[in-house]
């Protein structure tokens, strides 16, 4: 398998606080990778750096042989890395269909066309197709302000899939969704993603989902990678069990008591 | 259309009036809807707008019931009653002028304190062919930009005031060497300062300018300016500040003894001498934009005006009241003259024609519409020096400049006249 993303010696600090240290990661074509770690371990910081939202303090990020560290998110998106967000990032006053059509339009004409309408038969067909892949075509004309969290999550990912990226980064795709719906949601996501053969790296707290969908796991702890390898090995790793899985389970227990 | 209706109506009345011969024009004549535009809100309303409105109300009432003293007589304007319509100048005056005339049907308009309003309104008044009397704005541009048919100004323009101020200050301070200026940063302030300094420098070459301050209008805080003026230490400080700004300037300058060390020429200082008696030092030169207010010459008409104003409002009239009264009286005088000439109820057109070049009496003396083809008023310009006499504010050493001395001759722009060294000026 060909490597597409190569991250080497990546560091990020905010003033005196180190958010990520010596990150070295390689993602290959068509791979399914999970990223685990407790809150504040540096997972999202890592994704933010790869997608250009944060500028790394030092280190290299290469995508398909090109250095992309410090580029603007829009350039990185256009070069083939797309992402979803922990909290779905949407436009509350637009309908699902309009989100999709805007994503398509952004890809094709960018901002050049001032008077050509966004709505057109062709754009709609294409948008509905992708929405169909994610099972949310039925809500096409609803405004997202009125939608359930699960649908928003799916839309967030569907938007990321519009440009058919080579690498898709999903930041906690199942967070904020009820436990009993998590697997169904993940099924839909993976079903949608598989159509495009993109490599997927997803951040996840639910170890069952991790072991079901990931072939490889990267474990973060206090800004560093403490394990990186096949799913079973990493999940059995002593430090991972102590620092990450234990903490996550404790947190889950506390959370459930609060509820 | 309305206009022709009115003409034929008036012709009909004319015949009736002729039938009645020597009797005064018919009482049932069409009233004149008179637009009265001044600042009734905002910072200008207190010092200018309200006294103006009071002055207008007083005179209009007297005209309508016929109690004006001699030389005026009879009810109404040539028999036509006045129906006032008040409009606040604070909002888009140019636009509202059209509404006033075209929608509310004003037959004539008196008003406008701001030069900007006058510059903007004048062409529209000409276009709509409506008799319009500017009562207070000072800019010379209105008539220098071209002759007017429908627009009149019933008080002096700003240039004349400042030429007179220059002559006055040189008469009391012949050894004047340096000048400072404190004027608001807008048309009025800039032009006042320009005309004053140019006049002084023409009359006494070699006078230099120490500093020229131009704070924003309505700024209110003049500490830094007073420091700069103090340091510049000129012989004379000229200020065309008016209303609240003038008061604030005097209040803030007084404890710092600014006017004790340098003589101030306050071209509109007349409004402040009663309210800020303690703060104005003796020796300060006070102007009233003409010869109204505190510098009005004694006359029976003047006594009547002051007494009637005092009776109606419980206070003495400040000079904006005089100039508004002057404006309304211009209409009365012109209307009566037209009525007398034609022996009929005067049309607006007849009033307008009668007004051109007219001489009429006002509380502050005789006003003659002799400048700019009979459309711009000319009066004496008075300046005096402030002094407390028995604790009462008094203006001493009063000089009244005759029009021949300070008013540019017909057809000459005032700035050109000043720069040419006042050719043809006749001063005593």
């Amino acid at each position, binding site marked *: 398998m060909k490597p597409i993303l190569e991250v080497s010696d990546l560091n990020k600090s905010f003033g005196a606080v180190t958010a990520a240290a010596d990150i070295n990661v390689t993602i290959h074509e068509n791979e399914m990778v999970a990223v685990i770690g407790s809150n504040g371990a540096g997972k999202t910081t890592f994704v933010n750096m790869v997608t250009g939202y944060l500028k790394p303090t030092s280190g290299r990020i290469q995508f398909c042989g090109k250095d992309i560290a410090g580029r603007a998110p829009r350039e990185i998106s256009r070069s083939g890395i797309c992402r979803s967000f922990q909290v779905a990032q949407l436009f509350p006053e637009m309908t699902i269909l309009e989100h999709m059509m805007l994503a398509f339009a952004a890809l094709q004409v960018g901002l050049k066309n*001032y008077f050509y309408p*966004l709505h057109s038969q062709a754009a709609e067909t294409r948008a509905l197709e992708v929405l169909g892949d994610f099972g949310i075509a039925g809500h096409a*004309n609803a405004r997202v302000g009125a939608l359930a969290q699960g649908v928003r999550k799916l839309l967030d990912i569907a938007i990321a899939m519009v440009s058919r990226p080579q690498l898709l980064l999903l930041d906690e795709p199942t967070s904020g969704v009820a436990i009993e719906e998590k697997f169904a949601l993940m099924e839909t996501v993976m079903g949608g993603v598989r159509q495009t053969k993109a490599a997927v790296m997803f951040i996840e707290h639910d170890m069952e989902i991790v072991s079901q969908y990931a072939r490889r796991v990267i474990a973060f702890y206090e800004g560093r990678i403490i394990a990186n390898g096949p799913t079973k090995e990493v999940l059995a790793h002593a430090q991972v069990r102590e620092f990450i899985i234990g903490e996550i389970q404790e947190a889950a227990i506390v959370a459930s008591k609060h509820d | 259309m309305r206009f022709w209706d009115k003409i034929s109506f008036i012709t009909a009345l004319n015949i009736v009036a002729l039938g009645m011969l020597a009797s005064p024009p018919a009482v049932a004549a069409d009233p004149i809807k008179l637009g009265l535009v001044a600042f009734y809100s905002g910072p200008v309303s207190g010092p200018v707008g309200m006294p103006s409105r009071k002055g207008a109300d007083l005179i209009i009432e007297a005209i309508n019931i016929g109690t004006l003293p001699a030389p005026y007589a009879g009810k109404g304007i040539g028999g036509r009653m006045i129906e006032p319509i008040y409009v606040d100048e604070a909002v888009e005056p140019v*636009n509202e002028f*059209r509404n006033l005339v*075209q929608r509310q049907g004003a037959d004539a308009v008196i008003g406008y304190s701001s030069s900007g309003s006058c510059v903007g309104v004048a062409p529209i008044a000409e276009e709509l062919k409506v008799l319009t009397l500017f009562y207070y704005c000072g800019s010379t541009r209105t008539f220098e930009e071209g002759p007017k048919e429908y627009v009149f100004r019933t008080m002096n323009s700003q240039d004349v005031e400042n030429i007179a101020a220059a002559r006055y200050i040189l008469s009391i301070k012949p050894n004047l060497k340096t000048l400072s200026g404190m004027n608001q940063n807008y*048309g009025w302030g800039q032009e006042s300062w320009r005309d004053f300094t140019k006049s002084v420098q023409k009359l006494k070459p070699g006078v230099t300018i120490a500093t020229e301050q*131009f704070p924003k209008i309505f700024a209110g805080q003049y500490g830094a300016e007073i420091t700069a003026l103090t340091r510049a230490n000129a012989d004379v400080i000229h200020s065309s500040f008016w209303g609240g700004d003038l008061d604030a300037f005097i209040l803030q300058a007084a404890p710092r003894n600014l006017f004790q060390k340098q003589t101030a020429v306050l071209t509109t200082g007349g409004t402040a001498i009663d309210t800020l008696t303690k703060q104005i030092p003796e020796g300060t030169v006070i102007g009233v934009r003409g010869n109204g207010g505190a510098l009005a010459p004694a006359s029976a008409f003047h006594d009547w005006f002051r007494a009637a104003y005092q009776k109606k409002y419980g206070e003495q009239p400040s000079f904006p009241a005089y100039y508004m009264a002057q404006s309304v009286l211009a209409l009365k005088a012109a209307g009566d003259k037209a009525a007398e000439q034609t022996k009929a109820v005067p049309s607006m057109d007849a009033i307008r024609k009668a007004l051109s070049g007219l001489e009429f009496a006002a509380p502050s003396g005789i006003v003659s519409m002799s400048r700019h083809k009979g459309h711009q008023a000319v009066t004496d310009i008075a300046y005096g020096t402030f002094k407390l006499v028995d604790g009462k504010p008094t203006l001493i050493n009063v000089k009244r400049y005759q029009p021949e001395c300070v008013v540019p001759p017909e057809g000459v722009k005032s700035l050109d006249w000043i720069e040419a060294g006042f050719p043809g000026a006749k001063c005593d």
Partner: protein
Amino acid sequence: MRAFDKTPLAIVVATTLLLVGFFVFPAWLSLMVVTIIAKALVVVGVVVLMRSGLVSFGQGLYYCIGGYAVSLGEQVLQITDIFVLLALAMAAGLVAGSILGLLMSRYREIFFAMFSLALSMILYGILSRTQSLGSTDGLNIVQPTLFGIKLATQQAKLLIYFTTCVLAALVTYAVHRYIRSPLGYASMAVRDNEIRVEYLGLAPKKVFYSNYVIASVVAALGGAITALNYGHVQPDMAYWSQSGEFIFIALMGGTSHVAAAFLGSAVFETIRTYALELAPDAWRVILGGVLIAIICFLPKGLWSLTQFGKRSGSSDWDRVVDEKDST
């Protein structure tokens, strides 16, 4: 299945009615119509900016630039043709907007509002200080000509009126199209979530920039028409309260449709002029009260009133259209 866009038809009908109206209206009403439209054009720009989340407290800057461009075009360049003058004003707005837009597109929210206010106040200060430009008294503008032909007063009025109506129709249609273009949607998107727009592969700054330039050009056009209509320009056009008035009108009308700007402007002008006439001592209370009431009870502006009838009792299909209309 896509809904028929009723807006172009509505524009044609409204414009035709207005054009015919000139021959029926009393003179003051015709002038008021031009005033309303001129201000509404500036407000259209304010609305375009508002849709992308930017509120300009300095749109008076371009309004003033447009007005002075006409006046200086007449006095300095000796141009009197109405179309050349209007084009000149729009070009001035375009140039100023394109340059300042580079700076302004970096700002958001209240900082954009305050920076735009600062810029327009600087222009106000400069003009007020410049005696050769008439200082605060401003400049007068003589009647425009048409292709070199001198016109009688009444003809010139007709010309200004017709030109204003037709230009307003064109601008309305163009902006209506623009709002429905990808860039128009992107504008709404950057208001809600700039980061997501960035991740769509678009540059939010460019979105803001193009909105800013469009707003500048229409504001300059509005200023130019006002100048021709009043025959007078003053630095007050750049004073902050003038810009505040435009935002006032925009919020009154609502931002969901271009036409809302015209509705807002018409209502505003009517309320103000009658408040001034009927209550010369209390027009501020009336105006301020109306503003607060509209914000409290009609958060989407007066335009939402026109949507009521449609929504209730209409079919599903209509509802989809309606929603689209108001996005």
